[in-house]
């Protein structure tokens, strides 16, 4: 069940161009070569609140296992951003078109990943966000 991720960076910021290509890397479970075999699928929400919303809830069973998070701000407005936090610690702001791909250890149950349409107003329009989680913990779903 190979799920693979690749990043290609090209830049002419420096005097000489920079080209980084990770190649397709297989997403594996913690500490081994077994492939990640679960996902939330690709989801989409329209954010219309400056309040933090839980995108991925941390789970004790996932503590220090391997998980990968993908989030993209699909807004076409460069000024509209989504603030991404983990346990109230701001990672960064995804402006229109920006994406992120990070490992997520769920070190504790407070380590949920949250998003907020921080500069949203009723006149800016919603901010569409797409996201996916690839993980290995079998008990990711929250108990009812």
């Amino acid at each position: 069940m190979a799920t693979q991720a690749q990043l290609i960076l090209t830049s002419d910021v420096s005097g000489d161009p920079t080209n980084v290509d990770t190649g397709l890397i297989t997403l594996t479970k913690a500490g081994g070569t077994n492939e990640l075999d679960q996902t939330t699928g690709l989801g989409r929400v329209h954010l219309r609140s400056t309040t933090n919303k839980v995108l991925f809830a941390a789970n004790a069973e996932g503590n220090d296992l391997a998980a990968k998070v993908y989030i993209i701000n699909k807004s076409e407005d460069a000024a509209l951003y989504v603030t991404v936090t983990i346990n109230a610690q701001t990672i960064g702001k995804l402006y229109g078109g920006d994406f992120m791909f990070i490992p997520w250890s769920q070190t504790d149950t407070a380590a949920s990943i949250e998003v907020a349409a921080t500069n949203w107003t009723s006149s800016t329009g919603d901010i569409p966000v797409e996201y996916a989680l690839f993980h290995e913990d079998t008990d990711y779903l929250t108990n009812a």
Partner: protein
Amino acid sequence: MATTTAQLILTSTDLLSDSLSVSAIGTLTGAGNSTGLTGTEGLGRKKLASGHAQYVLFEAGNRTADKAHKIYLKNTSTTAAEYFLITLNGEDMGRLYAGDWAFFPWSAHDSDNDIKIDPSADDMTLEYMLFTDD
């Protein structure tokens, strides 16, 4: 104007019953505008030969706060069990296992918002790059 582009390709043919294919490409721009980022600390590598203790990779105090900095990290190890733990102001983000990479925005919203790295073993090499919006 300087142009930096980042492209992500996510693909899986058999994780789900239907194949998954995601491609995203974007130009890295300043906070809230369409001007390309013009600063970088360059593509670098860091290896701690011994002691494998946590170290500060990027100091928030060196950056303009609340901007659109971008960070690229890659674990170049080929030993599956070796990882770098990425920490943000004391909060663990995640473990970057052998071959894994990460790409994310960094607000550097205050001077405590350092990006710290903790290798799980000696002699591990981290590849990194920071695009700055100062």
